[in-house]
Protein backbone atom coordinates (compact mmCIF):
# COMPACT_ATOMS: atom_id res chain seq x y z
CA UNK A 1 0.00 0.00 0.00
CA UNK A 2 2.93 2.33 0.77
CA UNK A 3 4.18 1.92 -2.79
CA UNK A 4 0.77 2.90 -4.17
CA UNK A 5 0.63 6.00 -1.97
CA UNK A 6 4.21 6.92 -2.91
CA UNK A 7 3.21 6.97 -6.60
CA UNK A 8 0.03 8.89 -5.70
CA UNK A 9 2.06 11.46 -3.75
CA UNK A 10 4.18 12.19 -6.83
CA UNK A 11 1.03 12.79 -8.88
CA UNK A 12 -0.39 15.18 -6.27
CA UNK A 13 2.90 17.11 -6.08
CA UNK A 14 2.85 17.35 -9.86
CA UNK A 15 -0.57 19.02 -9.80
CA UNK A 16 0.51 21.86 -7.56
CA UNK A 17 3.80 22.32 -9.41
CA UNK A 18 2.04 22.70 -12.72
CA UNK A 19 0.20 25.93 -13.49
CA UNK A 20 -3.00 24.43 -14.99
CA UNK A 21 -5.04 24.51 -11.82
CA UNK A 22 -3.98 28.04 -10.84
CA UNK A 23 -4.85 29.41 -14.27
CA UNK A 24 -8.26 27.75 -14.28
CA UNK A 25 -9.00 28.82 -10.74
CA UNK A 26 -8.04 32.44 -11.44
CA UNK A 27 -10.21 32.34 -14.57
CA UNK A 28 -13.14 31.07 -12.48
CA UNK A 29 -12.59 33.82 -9.92
CA UNK A 30 -12.37 36.50 -12.61
CA UNK A 31 -15.45 35.43 -14.55
CA UNK A 32 -17.52 34.89 -11.41
CA UNK A 33 -16.28 38.24 -10.08
CA UNK A 34 -17.43 39.96 -13.27
CA UNK A 35 -20.85 38.33 -12.96
CA UNK A 36 -20.96 39.36 -9.32
CA UNK A 37 -20.35 42.97 -10.31
CA UNK A 38 -23.11 42.99 -12.92
CA UNK A 39 -26.09 44.99 -11.82
CA UNK A 40 -29.57 43.87 -12.85
CA UNK A 41 -32.32 46.39 -12.08
CA UNK A 42 -30.45 47.72 -9.03
CA UNK A 43 -31.02 44.45 -7.21
CA UNK A 44 -27.99 43.21 -5.31
CA UNK A 45 -29.69 40.09 -3.98
CA UNK A 46 -29.79 38.20 -7.27
CA UNK A 47 -27.72 35.08 -6.66
CA UNK A 48 -28.91 32.11 -8.70
CA UNK A 49 -27.52 33.53 -11.92
CA UNK A 50 -24.08 33.88 -10.33
CA UNK A 51 -24.31 30.40 -8.83
CA UNK A 52 -25.20 28.97 -12.23
CA UNK A 53 -22.23 30.59 -13.97
CA UNK A 54 -19.81 29.69 -11.17
CA UNK A 55 -20.93 26.05 -11.01
CA UNK A 56 -20.81 25.74 -14.78
CA UNK A 57 -17.19 26.95 -14.76
CA UNK A 58 -16.34 24.56 -11.92
CA UNK A 59 -17.81 21.63 -13.86
CA UNK A 60 -15.99 22.51 -17.07
CA UNK A 61 -12.63 23.25 -15.43
CA UNK A 62 -12.71 20.27 -13.10
CA UNK A 63 -13.32 18.02 -16.08
CA UNK A 64 -10.39 19.66 -17.88
CA UNK A 65 -8.12 19.13 -14.84
CA UNK A 66 -9.19 15.50 -14.40
CA UNK A 67 -8.78 14.51 -18.05
CA UNK A 68 -5.51 16.36 -18.69
CA UNK A 69 -3.93 15.20 -15.42
CA UNK A 70 -4.86 11.56 -15.91
CA UNK A 71 -4.14 11.47 -19.63
CA UNK A 72 -0.49 12.45 -19.31
CA UNK A 73 0.49 10.10 -16.45
CA UNK A 74 1.50 6.90 -18.26
CA UNK A 75 2.43 8.45 -21.65
CA UNK A 76 4.78 11.00 -20.04
CA UNK A 77 6.44 8.28 -17.96
CA UNK A 78 6.97 6.27 -21.14
CA UNK A 79 8.14 9.27 -23.13
CA UNK A 80 10.70 10.36 -20.56
CA UNK A 81 11.58 6.70 -19.95
CA UNK A 82 11.14 7.11 -16.19
CA UNK A 83 8.76 4.15 -16.33
CA UNK A 84 11.73 1.77 -16.59
CA UNK A 85 13.53 2.77 -13.36
CA UNK A 86 10.11 2.92 -11.72
CA UNK A 87 9.22 -0.63 -12.73
CA UNK A 88 12.73 -1.81 -11.89
CA UNK A 89 11.85 -1.11 -8.27
CA UNK A 90 9.84 -3.73 -6.38
CA UNK A 91 6.52 -2.40 -7.64
CA UNK A 92 4.07 -4.12 -9.97
CA UNK A 93 2.33 -2.56 -12.92
CA UNK A 94 -1.07 -2.67 -11.28
CA UNK A 95 0.37 -0.84 -8.24
CA UNK A 96 1.68 1.89 -10.55
CA UNK A 97 -1.72 2.15 -12.21
CA UNK A 98 -3.56 2.22 -8.88
CA UNK A 99 -1.11 4.79 -7.52
CA UNK A 100 -1.61 6.97 -10.58
CA UNK A 101 -5.39 6.67 -10.20
CA UNK A 102 -5.43 7.52 -6.48
CA UNK A 103 -3.03 10.41 -7.06
CA UNK A 104 -5.11 11.86 -9.89
CA UNK A 105 -8.37 11.37 -8.02
CA UNK A 106 -7.04 12.95 -4.81
CA UNK A 107 -5.46 15.82 -6.76
CA UNK A 108 -8.82 16.44 -8.47
CA UNK A 109 -10.49 16.28 -5.06
CA UNK A 110 -8.16 18.95 -3.64
CA UNK A 111 -8.72 21.20 -6.66
CA UNK A 112 -12.47 20.60 -6.47
CA UNK A 113 -12.53 21.38 -2.77
CA UNK A 114 -10.89 24.77 -3.42
CA UNK A 115 -13.39 25.45 -6.19
CA UNK A 116 -16.33 24.58 -3.94
CA UNK A 117 -15.00 26.67 -1.05
CA UNK A 118 -14.86 29.61 -3.45
CA UNK A 119 -18.36 28.80 -4.66
CA UNK A 120 -19.62 28.67 -1.07
CA UNK A 121 -18.07 32.07 -0.33
CA UNK A 122 -19.59 33.64 -3.43
CA UNK A 123 -22.98 32.18 -2.68
CA UNK A 124 -22.88 33.12 1.02
CA UNK A 125 -21.87 36.69 0.22
CA UNK A 126 -25.25 37.21 -1.47
CA UNK A 127 -27.53 34.70 0.24
CA UNK A 128 -26.14 35.19 3.77
CA UNK A 129 -26.61 31.46 4.40
CA UNK A 130 -24.32 28.53 3.80
CA UNK A 131 -26.07 25.19 3.25
CA UNK A 132 -22.97 23.15 4.09
CA UNK A 133 -24.74 19.78 3.80
CA UNK A 134 -26.00 20.43 0.28
CA UNK A 135 -22.67 21.82 -0.88
CA UNK A 136 -20.84 18.86 0.61
CA UNK A 137 -23.17 16.46 -1.19
CA UNK A 138 -22.63 18.35 -4.45
CA UNK A 139 -18.85 18.26 -3.95
CA UNK A 140 -18.85 14.60 -2.98
CA UNK A 141 -20.91 13.42 -5.94
CA UNK A 142 -18.95 15.65 -8.29
CA UNK A 143 -15.76 14.06 -6.99
CA UNK A 144 -17.15 10.54 -7.61
CA UNK A 145 -17.93 11.58 -11.16
CA UNK A 146 -14.37 12.80 -11.62
CA UNK A 147 -13.15 9.45 -10.27
CA UNK A 148 -14.99 7.65 -13.10
CA UNK A 149 -13.57 10.11 -15.65
CA UNK A 150 -10.04 9.66 -14.28
CA UNK A 151 -10.35 5.86 -14.44
CA UNK A 152 -11.71 6.07 -18.00
CA UNK A 153 -8.87 8.37 -19.00
CA UNK A 154 -6.24 6.05 -17.51
CA UNK A 155 -7.73 3.19 -19.51
CA UNK A 156 -7.62 5.37 -22.60
CA UNK A 157 -4.04 6.39 -21.89
CA UNK A 158 -2.83 2.79 -22.19
CA UNK A 159 -4.94 2.05 -25.25
CA UNK A 160 -4.83 5.25 -27.33
CA UNK A 161 -2.43 8.04 -28.22
CA UNK A 162 -2.51 10.97 -25.73
CA UNK A 163 -4.26 13.38 -28.12
CA UNK A 164 -6.86 10.83 -29.18
CA UNK A 165 -7.42 9.83 -25.56
CA UNK A 166 -8.11 13.40 -24.40
CA UNK A 167 -10.44 14.05 -27.33
CA UNK A 168 -12.35 10.80 -26.94
CA UNK A 169 -12.76 11.18 -23.18
CA UNK A 170 -13.99 14.78 -23.53
CA UNK A 171 -16.50 13.78 -26.20
CA UNK A 172 -17.73 10.79 -24.18
CA UNK A 173 -17.96 12.71 -20.88
CA UNK A 174 -19.73 15.73 -22.33
CA UNK A 175 -21.96 13.47 -24.42
CA UNK A 176 -22.99 11.43 -21.37
CA UNK A 177 -23.49 14.53 -19.22
CA UNK A 178 -25.75 16.18 -21.76
CA UNK A 179 -27.54 13.22 -23.36
CA UNK A 180 -26.86 10.12 -21.29
CA UNK A 181 -30.08 10.35 -19.31
CA UNK A 182 -32.24 10.68 -22.40
CA UNK A 183 -30.99 7.82 -24.54
CA UNK A 184 -33.81 5.51 -23.46
CA UNK A 185 -36.35 8.17 -24.43
CA UNK A 186 -34.73 8.51 -27.84
CA UNK A 187 -34.70 4.73 -28.23
CA UNK A 188 -38.47 4.65 -27.73
CA UNK A 189 -38.97 6.39 -31.06
CA UNK A 190 -36.41 4.43 -33.02
CA UNK A 191 -36.83 1.37 -35.16
CA UNK A 192 -34.94 -1.91 -34.69
CA UNK A 193 -32.02 -2.56 -34.50
CA UNK A 194 -31.14 1.09 -33.63
CA UNK A 195 -33.53 1.06 -30.66
CA UNK A 196 -31.88 -2.00 -29.10
CA UNK A 197 -28.38 -0.64 -29.72
CA UNK A 198 -29.21 2.74 -28.13
CA UNK A 199 -30.94 1.00 -25.20
CA UNK A 200 -27.89 -1.22 -24.68
CA UNK A 201 -25.62 1.83 -24.73
CA UNK A 202 -27.93 3.49 -22.20
CA UNK A 203 -27.54 0.60 -19.76
CA UNK A 204 -23.81 0.16 -20.34
CA UNK A 205 -22.49 3.71 -20.03
CA UNK A 206 -21.64 5.21 -16.64
CA UNK A 207 -24.38 7.77 -16.05
CA UNK A 208 -22.25 10.76 -15.10
CA UNK A 209 -25.35 12.96 -15.01
CA UNK A 210 -26.46 11.14 -11.84
CA UNK A 211 -23.68 12.98 -10.01
CA UNK A 212 -24.79 16.38 -11.22
CA UNK A 213 -26.61 18.24 -8.44
CA UNK A 214 -26.20 21.65 -10.08
CA UNK A 215 -29.90 22.34 -10.57
CA UNK A 216 -30.68 21.44 -6.95
CA UNK A 217 -27.90 23.69 -5.65
CA UNK A 218 -28.75 26.64 -7.89
CA UNK A 219 -32.45 26.59 -7.05
CA UNK A 220 -32.02 25.90 -3.32
CA UNK A 221 -33.71 22.51 -3.30
CA UNK A 222 -33.37 20.46 -0.13
CA UNK A 223 -30.68 17.84 0.40
CA UNK A 224 -30.75 14.60 -1.55
CA UNK A 225 -31.51 11.72 0.86
CA UNK A 226 -28.15 10.51 2.18
CA UNK A 227 -29.03 6.93 1.25
CA UNK A 228 -29.35 7.99 -2.41
CA UNK A 229 -26.05 9.85 -2.23
CA UNK A 230 -24.49 6.72 -0.73
CA UNK A 231 -26.00 4.55 -3.48
CA UNK A 232 -24.64 6.94 -6.13
CA UNK A 233 -21.22 6.68 -4.49
CA UNK A 234 -21.44 2.88 -4.74
CA UNK A 235 -22.47 3.15 -8.38
CA UNK A 236 -19.52 5.44 -9.07
CA UNK A 237 -17.04 3.17 -7.25
CA UNK A 238 -18.25 0.17 -9.23
CA UNK A 239 -17.52 1.93 -12.52
CA UNK A 240 -14.16 3.19 -11.23
CA UNK A 241 -13.17 -0.39 -10.34
CA UNK A 242 -14.34 -1.64 -13.72
CA UNK A 243 -12.32 0.91 -15.73
CA UNK A 244 -9.33 0.57 -13.45
CA UNK A 245 -9.33 -3.20 -13.77
CA UNK A 246 -9.55 -2.88 -17.54
CA UNK A 247 -6.68 -0.36 -17.49
CA UNK A 248 -4.55 -2.71 -15.36
CA UNK A 249 -5.25 -5.63 -17.70
CA UNK A 250 -4.27 -3.61 -20.77
CA UNK A 251 -1.23 -2.10 -19.04
CA UNK A 252 -0.04 -5.52 -17.86
CA UNK A 253 0.37 -6.72 -21.45
CA UNK A 254 1.50 -3.39 -22.86
CA UNK A 255 4.98 -3.15 -24.39
CA UNK A 256 6.64 -0.09 -22.89
CA UNK A 257 9.41 0.58 -25.38
Amino acid at each position, binding site marked *: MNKIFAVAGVVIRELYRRKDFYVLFILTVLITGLMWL*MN*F*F*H*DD*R*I*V*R*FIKEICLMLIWIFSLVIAVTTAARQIPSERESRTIFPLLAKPITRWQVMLGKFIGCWLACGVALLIFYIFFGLVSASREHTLPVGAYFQAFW*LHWQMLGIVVAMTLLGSVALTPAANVTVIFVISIGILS*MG*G*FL*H*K*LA*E*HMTEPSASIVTAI*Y*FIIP*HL*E*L*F*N*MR*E*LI*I*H*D*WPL*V*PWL*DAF*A*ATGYGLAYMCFFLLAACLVFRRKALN
Partner: protein
Amino acid sequence: MRKALLSMVLLLVICFSIEAWLQPRYETRSSREETPGNPLAGMLGDGRKMVADYFYVEADVYFHSGYYPSVFDQARQQEEQDSDVSHPSEGSGEEETGFMGKPLDWIDAFGRHFIPSRHTHLQGETVREMLPWMELSAELDPQRVQTYVVTAYWLRRRLGKSAEAEDFLREGLRSTPHSPDLLYALGQIYLEDRKDYPHAKNLFLAALRCWHEVEEPKPLKTETGEGVRNTLLLEQILGGLAEDEEAAGNLNQSLQYLEQLKTNASDPAGVQQQIDELQAKIKAGAGKTNR
Protein backbone atom coordinates in the same frame (compact mmCIF):
# COMPACT_ATOMS: atom_id res chain seq x y z
CA MET B 1 19.74 46.88 -43.99
CA ARG B 2 18.47 49.99 -45.79
CA LYS B 3 16.23 47.82 -47.97
CA ALA B 4 14.74 46.12 -44.94
CA LEU B 5 14.07 49.47 -43.28
CA LEU B 6 12.43 50.85 -46.39
CA SER B 7 10.32 47.72 -46.73
CA MET B 8 9.11 48.13 -43.14
CA VAL B 9 8.17 51.75 -43.79
CA LEU B 10 6.36 50.70 -46.96
CA LEU B 11 4.45 48.02 -45.06
CA LEU B 12 3.48 50.54 -42.40
CA VAL B 13 2.19 52.91 -45.06
CA ILE B 14 0.19 50.10 -46.68
CA CYS B 15 -1.28 49.15 -43.30
CA PHE B 16 -2.23 52.74 -42.56
CA SER B 17 -3.83 53.17 -46.00
CA ILE B 18 -5.90 50.00 -45.68
CA GLU B 19 -6.98 50.99 -42.18
CA ALA B 20 -8.01 54.46 -43.39
CA TRP B 21 -10.00 52.81 -46.18
CA LEU B 22 -11.67 50.27 -43.88
CA GLN B 23 -12.51 52.51 -40.93
CA PRO B 24 -15.45 54.46 -42.48
CA ARG B 25 -16.93 51.22 -43.79
CA TYR B 26 -16.69 49.65 -40.36
CA GLU B 27 -18.34 52.69 -38.77
CA THR B 28 -21.22 52.56 -41.26
CA ARG B 29 -21.72 48.86 -40.69
CA SER B 30 -21.68 49.09 -36.90
CA SER B 31 -24.17 52.00 -36.92
CA ARG B 32 -26.51 49.81 -39.00
CA GLU B 33 -26.43 47.03 -36.40
CA GLU B 34 -29.60 46.51 -34.35
CA THR B 35 -27.68 46.58 -31.11
CA PRO B 36 -24.71 48.88 -31.61
CA GLY B 37 -22.14 48.78 -28.85
CA ASN B 38 -23.20 45.39 -27.52
CA PRO B 39 -20.15 43.11 -27.75
CA LEU B 40 -22.14 39.94 -27.07
CA ALA B 41 -24.62 40.73 -29.84
CA GLY B 42 -21.77 41.62 -32.17
CA MET B 43 -20.04 38.35 -31.42
CA LEU B 44 -23.15 36.23 -31.95
CA GLY B 45 -24.28 38.01 -35.13
CA ASP B 46 -27.64 36.83 -36.42
CA GLY B 47 -27.56 33.89 -34.03
CA ARG B 48 -28.24 36.26 -31.16
CA LYS B 49 -32.02 35.91 -31.57
CA MET B 50 -31.70 32.21 -30.97
CA VAL B 51 -29.58 32.82 -27.88
CA ALA B 52 -32.09 35.49 -26.76
CA ASP B 53 -34.86 32.87 -27.03
CA TYR B 54 -32.76 30.46 -25.01
CA PHE B 55 -32.23 33.08 -22.28
CA TYR B 56 -35.95 33.83 -22.24
CA VAL B 57 -36.69 30.13 -21.73
CA GLU B 58 -33.98 30.06 -19.05
CA ALA B 59 -35.95 32.72 -17.15
CA ASP B 60 -38.96 30.38 -17.27
CA VAL B 61 -36.76 27.52 -16.05
CA TYR B 62 -35.80 29.71 -13.08
CA PHE B 63 -39.46 30.54 -12.46
CA HIS B 64 -40.06 26.81 -12.12
CA SER B 65 -36.92 26.39 -9.99
CA GLY B 66 -35.30 24.12 -12.52
CA TYR B 67 -38.29 21.79 -12.96
CA TYR B 68 -38.54 22.09 -16.70
CA PRO B 69 -38.79 19.71 -19.64
CA SER B 70 -35.66 19.22 -21.71
CA VAL B 71 -35.78 19.13 -25.50
CA PHE B 72 -36.06 15.36 -25.30
CA ASP B 73 -38.99 15.57 -22.88
CA GLN B 74 -40.69 18.14 -25.07
CA ALA B 75 -40.27 15.97 -28.14
CA ARG B 76 -41.54 12.95 -26.30
CA GLN B 77 -44.46 14.81 -24.86
CA GLN B 78 -45.44 16.26 -28.19
CA GLU B 79 -45.51 12.76 -29.58
CA GLU B 80 -47.65 11.50 -26.76
CA GLN B 81 -49.90 14.57 -27.09
CA ASP B 82 -49.81 15.05 -23.39
CA SER B 83 -51.78 18.19 -22.64
CA ASP B 84 -50.43 20.19 -19.73
CA VAL B 85 -46.65 20.59 -19.91
CA SER B 86 -45.52 23.65 -18.18
CA HIS B 87 -48.35 24.11 -15.73
CA PRO B 88 -49.50 20.90 -14.15
CA SER B 89 -51.06 21.32 -10.72
CA GLU B 90 -48.91 23.25 -8.25
CA GLY B 91 -46.48 21.15 -6.23
CA SER B 92 -47.74 20.03 -2.88
CA GLY B 93 -44.79 18.16 -1.43
CA GLU B 94 -45.60 14.86 -3.05
CA GLU B 95 -43.37 13.79 -5.91
CA GLU B 96 -45.09 14.52 -9.22
CA THR B 97 -44.52 12.79 -12.50
CA GLY B 98 -45.64 15.86 -14.55
CA PHE B 99 -43.94 16.12 -17.91
CA MET B 100 -41.47 13.40 -16.87
CA GLY B 101 -44.07 10.66 -16.88
CA LYS B 102 -43.51 7.42 -15.03
CA PRO B 103 -39.83 6.33 -14.75
CA LEU B 104 -38.93 4.01 -17.60
CA ASP B 105 -36.25 2.08 -15.72
CA TRP B 106 -34.23 2.06 -12.50
CA ILE B 107 -31.63 4.54 -13.80
CA ASP B 108 -34.40 6.97 -14.73
CA ALA B 109 -36.08 6.50 -11.33
CA PHE B 110 -32.83 6.84 -9.40
CA GLY B 111 -31.71 9.87 -11.42
CA ARG B 112 -34.82 11.78 -10.38
CA HIS B 113 -33.42 12.09 -6.87
CA PHE B 114 -30.70 14.37 -8.20
CA ILE B 115 -32.78 16.79 -10.27
CA PRO B 116 -35.77 19.00 -9.42
CA SER B 117 -38.74 16.67 -9.69
CA ARG B 118 -41.56 18.77 -8.22
CA HIS B 119 -43.47 21.59 -9.85
CA THR B 120 -43.08 24.85 -7.96
CA HIS B 121 -43.10 28.53 -8.83
CA LEU B 122 -40.92 31.28 -7.44
CA GLN B 123 -42.79 33.11 -4.76
CA GLY B 124 -42.61 36.69 -3.49
CA GLU B 125 -39.38 38.55 -4.06
CA THR B 126 -37.52 35.46 -5.27
CA VAL B 127 -38.88 36.21 -8.76
CA ARG B 128 -35.94 38.59 -8.98
CA GLU B 129 -33.82 35.55 -9.86
CA MET B 130 -35.36 35.45 -13.36
CA LEU B 131 -34.44 39.03 -14.17
CA PRO B 132 -30.81 38.60 -15.33
CA TRP B 133 -31.93 36.22 -18.09
CA MET B 134 -34.69 38.63 -19.13
CA GLU B 135 -32.28 41.53 -19.35
CA LEU B 136 -29.72 39.51 -21.30
CA SER B 137 -32.46 38.29 -23.63
CA ALA B 138 -33.62 41.86 -24.25
CA GLU B 139 -30.05 42.98 -24.89
CA LEU B 140 -29.59 40.33 -27.53
CA ASP B 141 -32.97 40.78 -29.18
CA PRO B 142 -34.25 44.30 -28.46
CA GLN B 143 -37.10 43.88 -30.97
CA ARG B 144 -38.74 41.19 -28.89
CA VAL B 145 -41.46 43.22 -27.18
CA GLN B 146 -42.70 40.36 -25.02
CA THR B 147 -39.47 40.32 -23.01
CA TYR B 148 -39.92 43.97 -21.98
CA VAL B 149 -43.60 43.58 -21.14
CA VAL B 150 -43.11 40.44 -19.05
CA THR B 151 -40.08 41.85 -17.22
CA ALA B 152 -41.91 45.09 -16.46
CA TYR B 153 -44.80 43.06 -15.09
CA TRP B 154 -42.57 41.18 -12.61
CA LEU B 155 -40.69 44.33 -11.67
CA ARG B 156 -43.89 46.23 -10.90
CA ARG B 157 -46.24 43.63 -9.51
CA ARG B 158 -43.91 41.46 -7.47
CA LEU B 159 -40.93 43.64 -6.71
CA GLY B 160 -42.52 47.08 -6.54
CA LYS B 161 -39.83 48.53 -8.81
CA SER B 162 -41.88 50.72 -11.09
CA ALA B 163 -38.97 53.12 -11.78
CA GLU B 164 -36.85 50.22 -13.06
CA ALA B 165 -39.83 48.89 -15.02
CA GLU B 166 -40.29 52.29 -16.65
CA ASP B 167 -36.60 52.52 -17.58
CA PHE B 168 -36.72 49.07 -19.08
CA LEU B 169 -39.88 49.78 -21.09
CA ARG B 170 -38.36 53.01 -22.38
CA GLU B 171 -35.31 51.02 -23.44
CA GLY B 172 -37.66 48.77 -25.41
CA LEU B 173 -39.38 51.79 -26.94
CA ARG B 174 -36.05 52.98 -28.28
CA SER B 175 -35.85 49.82 -30.41
CA THR B 176 -39.56 49.56 -31.26
CA PRO B 177 -41.02 53.06 -30.84
CA HIS B 178 -44.41 52.12 -32.29
CA SER B 179 -45.15 49.14 -30.09
CA PRO B 180 -48.67 49.46 -28.62
CA ASP B 181 -47.81 46.81 -26.00
CA LEU B 182 -44.92 48.84 -24.63
CA LEU B 183 -46.87 52.09 -24.66
CA TYR B 184 -49.78 50.44 -22.88
CA ALA B 185 -47.47 48.90 -20.24
CA LEU B 186 -45.86 52.29 -19.69
CA GLY B 187 -49.28 53.93 -19.41
CA GLN B 188 -50.20 51.46 -16.70
CA ILE B 189 -47.20 52.54 -14.65
CA TYR B 190 -48.34 56.16 -14.84
CA LEU B 191 -51.96 55.24 -14.08
CA GLU B 192 -51.51 52.74 -11.27
CA ASP B 193 -48.17 53.59 -9.68
CA ARG B 194 -47.62 57.30 -10.33
CA LYS B 195 -51.30 58.37 -10.41
CA ASP B 196 -50.23 60.79 -13.13
CA TYR B 197 -53.50 60.63 -15.08
CA PRO B 198 -52.78 63.15 -17.90
CA HIS B 199 -49.46 61.42 -18.65
CA ALA B 200 -51.11 58.00 -18.55
CA LYS B 201 -53.86 59.21 -20.90
CA ASN B 202 -51.30 60.45 -23.42
CA LEU B 203 -49.55 57.10 -23.35
CA PHE B 204 -52.79 55.13 -23.74
CA LEU B 205 -53.83 57.35 -26.65
CA ALA B 206 -50.44 56.82 -28.26
CA ALA B 207 -50.87 53.07 -27.69
CA LEU B 208 -54.33 53.22 -29.32
CA ARG B 209 -52.96 55.10 -32.33
CA CYS B 210 -50.12 52.60 -32.70
CA TRP B 211 -52.55 49.70 -32.31
CA HIS B 212 -54.56 50.98 -35.28
CA GLU B 213 -51.33 51.40 -37.27
CA VAL B 214 -49.78 48.05 -36.38
CA GLU B 215 -52.61 45.66 -35.58
CA GLU B 216 -55.56 46.78 -37.70
CA PRO B 217 -54.06 45.65 -41.03
CA LYS B 218 -53.64 42.14 -39.61
CA PRO B 219 -56.33 39.49 -40.24
CA LEU B 220 -58.68 38.45 -37.44
CA LYS B 221 -57.96 34.78 -38.09
CA THR B 222 -55.24 32.86 -39.87
CA GLU B 223 -54.87 29.18 -40.64
CA THR B 224 -51.96 28.67 -38.27
CA GLY B 225 -53.17 31.14 -35.67
CA GLU B 226 -50.01 33.21 -36.11
CA GLY B 227 -49.99 36.87 -37.03
CA VAL B 228 -53.58 37.49 -35.98
CA ARG B 229 -54.84 40.84 -34.78
CA ASN B 230 -54.31 41.37 -31.06
CA THR B 231 -57.83 42.37 -30.03
CA LEU B 232 -57.12 41.68 -26.39
CA LEU B 233 -54.58 44.50 -26.39
CA LEU B 234 -57.21 46.87 -27.84
CA GLU B 235 -59.55 45.89 -25.00
CA GLN B 236 -56.80 46.54 -22.48
CA ILE B 237 -55.94 49.93 -23.95
CA LEU B 238 -59.60 51.06 -24.03
CA GLY B 239 -60.09 49.69 -20.52
CA GLY B 240 -57.01 51.62 -19.40
CA LEU B 241 -58.34 54.81 -20.96
CA ALA B 242 -61.72 54.35 -19.29
CA GLU B 243 -60.07 53.72 -15.93
CA ASP B 244 -57.80 56.72 -16.36
CA GLU B 245 -60.66 59.08 -17.21
CA GLU B 246 -62.68 57.79 -14.28
CA ALA B 247 -59.76 58.30 -11.91
CA ALA B 248 -59.27 61.81 -13.28
CA GLY B 249 -62.97 62.54 -12.66
CA ASN B 250 -63.98 62.69 -16.36
CA LEU B 251 -66.85 60.24 -16.02
CA ASN B 252 -68.57 61.08 -19.32
CA GLN B 253 -65.32 60.59 -21.20
CA SER B 254 -64.79 57.32 -19.37
CA LEU B 255 -68.31 56.23 -20.42
CA GLN B 256 -67.45 56.93 -24.05
CA TYR B 257 -64.41 54.70 -23.88
CA LEU B 258 -66.44 51.95 -22.23
CA GLU B 259 -69.04 52.17 -25.03
CA GLN B 260 -66.20 51.85 -27.52
CA LEU B 261 -64.81 48.94 -25.56
CA LYS B 262 -68.17 47.16 -25.53
CA THR B 263 -68.20 46.86 -29.32
CA ASN B 264 -64.78 45.19 -29.25
CA ALA B 265 -65.01 43.28 -25.97
CA SER B 266 -64.82 39.51 -25.60
CA ASP B 267 -67.18 39.87 -22.63
CA PRO B 268 -69.72 42.59 -23.60
CA ALA B 269 -71.98 41.75 -20.63
CA GLY B 270 -69.18 42.53 -18.17
CA VAL B 271 -68.48 45.84 -19.90
CA GLN B 272 -72.21 46.64 -19.88
CA GLN B 273 -72.21 46.12 -16.12
CA GLN B 274 -69.32 48.58 -15.82
CA ILE B 275 -71.27 51.05 -18.00
CA ASP B 276 -74.36 50.69 -15.80
CA GLU B 277 -72.32 51.30 -12.66
CA LEU B 278 -70.68 54.34 -14.18
CA GLN B 279 -74.02 55.72 -15.37
CA ALA B 280 -75.41 55.32 -11.86
CA LYS B 281 -72.39 57.17 -10.55
CA ILE B 282 -72.90 59.98 -13.06
CA LYS B 283 -76.59 60.23 -12.12
CA ALA B 284 -75.77 60.32 -8.43
CA GLY B 285 -73.22 63.04 -9.10
CA ALA B 286 -75.73 65.05 -11.15
CA GLY B 287 -78.34 64.69 -8.39
CA LYS B 288 -75.90 66.07 -5.84
CA THR B 289 -75.07 69.02 -8.11
CA ASN B 290 -78.81 69.81 -8.67
CA ARG B 291 -79.46 69.80 -4.95
